[in-house]
């Protein structure tokens, strides 16, 4: 098994693509940091007992006035920036993984049913998908959260799912419609396979690769959307860690020259999204070799 993996073309392509390796490196560092934040972060920034206002707005450790253990400085509440970033990444990953899982499953199923049964179901769902697609996902999620206030992280996930399932539904519908006409599906139907069996054994396996590509691109988009919503003050509640909110609070201090309040959480955010996008580019080419760089 391992030998087969080592000799495989996929691994070979991956290792020869420096941007894919860089992408997964960025992602892995932040993911490990986020998952193990409670153990590796120097401080729990959401425990009011450990915060002291004397330590507020300290610059990073290498600048004059910076001191240990605040490697990247502190914010106006005396929170350690590095620790807050690690905890904020936890929220980003939690929201992104949940959204991809829920929206991916629900959207794919809707697209599959629409393609398979066609008719009114197809017409209505696709019209809905088209309409939602032409409106901004940022705007729809923002309105949902602005109208139904105070639902915490689950509501943020729900709002993003409600805008996000469309991508999966469209992709799945496209693949399913193409595969539906293939001879082997017709053959399966001819020998009397049930609708359920045709969908799950014959159509879905063929539609998985494009869905994976969509999910990879979508991951970055969801991370950005959550950060944007939290930045605008309608996302993650104020007592929960979030990169978007850190940046929004840090913005008040940039005119006073406290750039580290914005630049470090911003870099973490960019690293997640860039890492995912680099990996997504590689995945897209790997799955669809026609796109290989000429």
């Amino acid at each position, binding site marked *: 098994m391992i030998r087969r993996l080592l000799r495989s073309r996929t691994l070979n392509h991956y290792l020869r693509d420096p941007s894919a390796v860089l992408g997964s490196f960025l992602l892995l560092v932040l993911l490990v940091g986020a998952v193990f934040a409670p153990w590796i972060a120097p401080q729990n920034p959401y425990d009011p007992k450990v915060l002291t206002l004397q330590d507020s707005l300290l610059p990073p450790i290498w600048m004059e006035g910076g001191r240990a253990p605040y490697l990247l400085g502190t914010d106006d509440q005396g929170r350690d920036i590095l620790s807050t970033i690690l905890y904020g990444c936890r929220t980003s990953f939690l929201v992104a993984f949940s959204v991809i899982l829920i929206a991916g499953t629900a959207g794919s199923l809707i697209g599959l049913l629409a393609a398979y049964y066609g008719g009114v179901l197809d017409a209505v769902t696709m019209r809905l998908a088209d309409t939602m697609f032409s409106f901004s996902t940022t705007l729809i999620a923002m309105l949902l959260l602005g109208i139904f206030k105070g639902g915490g992280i689950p509501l943020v996930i729900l709002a993003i799912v409600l805008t996000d399932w469309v991508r999966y539904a469209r992709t799945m519908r496209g693949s399913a419609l193409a595969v539906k006409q293939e001879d082997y599906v017709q053959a399966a139907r001819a020998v009397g396979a049930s609708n359920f069996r045709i969908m799950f054994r014959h159509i879905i396996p063929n539609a998985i690769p494009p869905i994976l590509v969509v999910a990879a691109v979508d991951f970055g988009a969801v991370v950005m959307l959550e950060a944007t919503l939290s930045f605008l003050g309608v996302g993650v509640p104020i007592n929960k860690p979030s990169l978007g909110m850190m940046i929004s609070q840090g913005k008040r201090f940039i005119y006073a020259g406290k750039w580290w309040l914005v630049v470090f959480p911003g870099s973490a955010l960019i690293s997640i999204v860039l890492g995912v*996008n680099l990996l997504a580019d590689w995945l897209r080419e790997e799955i669809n070799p026609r796109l290989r760089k000429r």
Partner: protein
Amino acid sequence: MISYIIRRIGQSIVVLFVVSFLCFGIFQFLGDPVLTLAGRYATQEQQELVRRSLGLDKPFYVQYAIFIRNALRGNFGLSYTSQVPVMRMILERFPASFELALVAMFIALTLGITLGVVSSLRPRSPLSRAIMAGSLLGISLPTFLVGILLILIFSVWLRVLPPFGRGEVVRIVGRWRSGLLALDGLRHLILPAITLGLYQLAVLLRLTRGGMLEALAEDYTRTAWAKGLPQRAVIFKHALRNVLIPVVTMAGLQMGELIGFSIVTESIFQWPGMGNLLLTAIYESDHPIIVAYVMFVAGLILFINLAVDILYGILNPKIRYD
């Protein structure tokens, strides 16, 4: 073609009705307009008076009909907080948003197409690789972060461009005040327009590059080279022309996304546009403004999509609608 246009207009109207129904539901069931308008300390009779004057004692469908009738006249009621007709507030702020979106889209289209063509001609050259790396960064940067970093660099560190507001504006017609005609207004436009346009720029660049790479490998392009046509003619007349149709269509379809991001941009640069108005309304639960904004933007987006669809049919003779 005409039957297609009529059908599309019909569909747009259906969508508008659905949106209006959702808006109406939100308006009715969230927050109590009676309490808001009559005040928290109103007596039972005063509340009843307000309820009747708003028509809230009538059945649901009658209320919806009244809502639609008022909406068709552009009447969405008064803002809870400022007691001014909300449609007037939105229209007052429209020019600022419109100019910002226009300049952002202009930057995105011109730079996006130019850089896309340049990077497709020699895909492996260092310049092309740099452009592609830049475009990847462009789609990986959230709009709000771009805005803040631009403020940090150009306003705080270099002190060359103003970080907020619209600056000096010149009155053109009626209420329309433009920042495009004053030097100070233009200086205020630069950072927000780049912030808003960057993502679209990256998207259009990648789309142009992909299309150009395909078009340059096509037989008709090879024929054009073989005929000995000058480079300019091959690239612009034969290859780019075929690529432009999907690119322009994409630019039109991205308008919805542009409006969404303009809310973020306006909030960062304290731009006096519709997006900022909406954000304030959301913070203050000022539902009439939210409803009017949604209806206005929905109408705008549906209109643009319709226009793009029709233009697409005219530009691309291969498409026949029937």
